[in-house]
């Protein structure tokens, strides 16, 4: 035990020196939101976008991605979240062109690409609506340990879908970096997106 403990000391010193010197490119970004780097898999899916085109996670490499699950018949929380993300995108100014909001429908029975197209564009021109089979959406949801449940409907066939409220943020390489909740401060979102957008931007 003792020799191993002693061996660790120089290592710790080295680490401390590294932290003091700082400034190197591999330095972790001073992110404010929940950092999930290394804890969640890279962005990967096979879905259909709101123009009816088949897309995969690889199609969004080069963009910082904000992934959010919801559905269009959700009149309160989903629109609020998308409206807040729109405000964040506005605050990023021209930098926001390097980011995409991917809104994945957890209501495959009602959300068509056309409905999704009208819906996402009512919020932000950098938002993309994604639909897929129940199986494809479930696979994506499970990949990020998120969940959704269709609630029992009324006599008219109206129903709600309970769903995870998290916003997953990926860097330009498709690496999962941050987790935000709809109640996250806009300042923190703007701050962290700035860092991710400044990093690895094509000159």
């Amino acid at each position, binding site marked *: 035990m003792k020799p191993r403990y002693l061996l660790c000391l120089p290592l710790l010193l080295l680490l401390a020196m590294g932290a003091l010197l700082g400034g190197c490119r591999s330095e972790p970004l001073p992110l404010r939101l929940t950092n999930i780097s290394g804890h969640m898999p890279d962005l990967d899916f096979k879905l259909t976008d709101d123009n009816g085109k088949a897309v995969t996670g690889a199609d969004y490499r080069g963009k910082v991605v904000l992934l959010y699950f919801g559905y269009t*018949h959700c009149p309160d929380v989903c629109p609020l979240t998308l409206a807040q993300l729109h405000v964040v995108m506005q605050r990023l100014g021209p930098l926001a062109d390097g980011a995409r909001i991917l809104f994945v429908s957890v209501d495959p029975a009602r959300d068509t690409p056309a409905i999704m197209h009208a819906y996402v564009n009512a919020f932000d021109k950098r938002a993309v609506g994604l639909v897929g089979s129940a199986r494809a959406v479930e696979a994506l949801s499970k990949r990020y340990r998120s969940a959704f449940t269709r609630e029992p409907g009324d006599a008219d066939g109206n129903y709600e879908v309970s769903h995870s409220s998290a916003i997953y943020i990926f860097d330009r390489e498709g690496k999962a970096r941050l987790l935000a909740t*709809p109640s996250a401060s806009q300042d923190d979102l703007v701050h962290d997106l700035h860092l991710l957008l400044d990093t690895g931007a094509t000159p």
Partner: protein
Amino acid sequence: MKPTRRPFLNAGLLLAGLLLAGGVQATAADHVHASDAWIRVLPGALPAGAYVTLHNDSAQPVALTGATSTAYAEVMLHHSSTAGGMSRMSMVDTLTVPAHGEAVLAPAGYHLMLMKAKTPVKPGDTVKLTLKFSDGSTLATDFAARPANAIDAGEPHAGH
């Protein structure tokens, strides 16, 4: 001094008595004032959320039970909640506006869900909703239709 002040005092008492008597007969709606009333308009036939702040100037709590509208076939009082990272929506029967207090219907909380618009509602429109209270009284309120990506009522709207 005393005799000259008495009549005024009596008049005051009489007035207070009249007001009190009036208060007993007044309905819930008489004591509620609505402000910041707005609707988030979504594309197509999608349901919309309506929001409003209700002020109760009486000494009794008042219960909102829902609303009706000539513009929408169905209106439901709903509550959104987030627990354990899951967003849920549930129907509620009543929302209490406390005595001398207010109840806020705002995004991510209480709202009126408007379904089946009879004619398309566009941002910029004014839509009348009739708020219903547990004593059967009603309060007609103008709601400002706002774009999908609005985050609040916008410029102040005086309620009636």
